[in-house]
């Protein structure tokens, strides 16, 4: 009761999300790797089951492949793409392929990351362009 420090973990100075966004603000797509080098996304405070040891941050080379794709055409607005991208480092994320019509995004297409800057309440987030036109 007199000393709680031994069972009180140090308070994190920055959340996984804020650290991730700090990388994005510098133009980098970050992910985490465990002690065996296995890639993890989305960022977490500690490794999930099946991963080994402590997590550390790493940055992606920015290249990936479209794993799955859809597009949505809201009334009175341009169609937009929603895709799952498999990054070359071995992690997957949801994103959007831009620079080509939303209905032209194809599974297997090679894509490269670009950071969509923060706007209003929304933090920065990664989007992708086809490698051919990037």
């Amino acid at each position: 009761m007199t000393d709680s420090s031994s069972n009180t973990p140090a308070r994190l100075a920055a959340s996984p999300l804020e650290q991730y966004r700090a990388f994005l603000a510098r133009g980098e797509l970050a992910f985490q790797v465990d002690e065996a080098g296995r890639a993890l996304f989305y960022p977490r405070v500690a490794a999930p089951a099946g991963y080994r040891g402590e997590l550390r941050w790493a940055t992606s080379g920015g290249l990936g492949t479209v794993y799955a794709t859809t597009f949505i055409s809201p009334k009175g607005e341009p169609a937009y793409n929603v895709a799952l991208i498999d990054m070359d480092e071995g992690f997957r994320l949801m994103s959007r392929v831009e620079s080509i019509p939303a209905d032209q995004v194809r599974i297997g297409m090679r894509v490269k990351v670009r950071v969509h800057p923060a706007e209003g309440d929304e933090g920065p987030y990664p989007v992708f362009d086809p490698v051919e036109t990037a």
Partner: protein
Amino acid sequence: MSANLRRGSAAIVGVAESDLGEVAAGMSVIDLMAQGVHGALADCGLTLADVDGVFAAAGQSRMPSTALCEYLGLKPRYHDSTMMGGSSFMTHVAHAQAAIAAGLCEVAVIAYGSTQRSAGRKNVAPRDYNPYETPYRPLTPASAYALAASRHMHQYGTTREQLAQIAVAARQWALLNPAAWEKEPLSVAQVLNARMVSHPLTVRDCCLVTDGGGALVLTSAERAKTLRKRPAYVLGVGETISHQNISSMPDLTVTGAATSGAQAYTMAGLKPQDIDVVQVYDAFTITTLLFLEDLGFCPKGEGGRFVSEGAIAPGGKLAVNTNGGGLSYCHPGMFGLFVLMEAVRQVRGECGARQVQGCETAIAHGNGGVLSSQSTVILGGASAL
């Protein structure tokens, strides 16, 4: 879950829908649950005084079992508001079977209600904010299923026409169900030419948006034999999860139904070819296709060809979603309870024009989230015990 459960130790003995479609103004989720409970108890000849276990889930109620107990004046020995989306009710059956086997309760009701149509969808179920998905504005849940469909089409050559066949079959079954929301025939061309929601899924590839609810009554096999209706024995159960968000699903063409189904088949001592009627949660056409594959009714990748040429429609080779499903009967948001209800009615032989002759076994598969939580229940009549 199923490891220590005894095949056939419990049975579903009462089922009832609440009001469906678009309910009267001011009806609450708990009003609908209570209609279901009173109806399901009347179905089997029990009363509120017999109920000592209460299970409930709803998208619009934070503490549904507590709210339902207050409303009905119940003080059950055991209650449970486990929330796993549309698969909650299959999981409730498994947990109720375990609770009954452990002596924690003897007569359990499992209830659901939703007023998403009359209240307006935006008012009833705010989605979790996910900073890694929400900025991309996927239409949740439709876009998640669209992504799975895109992958299945890419990997196996599945076509939009094949997916449309699933919607058409569901509609044909619905036309045999007087309680179904949809009353008009549907063609493949109508599905393909309907408003695109999230490519490749049109609004006719998507479940309905209705109100509705209902309840089941589950009790021990011994007690079941003394009641009014033919018991639907719980022969097998299985549960698993593979992810919560679609971006964390390991393989978009393989669902957890492959795992939960295998658990349920093992416990039941049955194989897919032993199942007389198949009820799967058809949130979208692709969902039916994935579950037919993962529950072993056709090989992986063959779903598109399997559902073609009316194979799962009335008169086809496999009876699937005989009430018309979430695509054409009703879909208040968490359809799993209705999947179970139809499986029970088929095993009882109560389905009128849509009855599968000689139905002794039924599989009821529930899906929660975006292919996330998967729960399977296999039911059978006395001859299947």
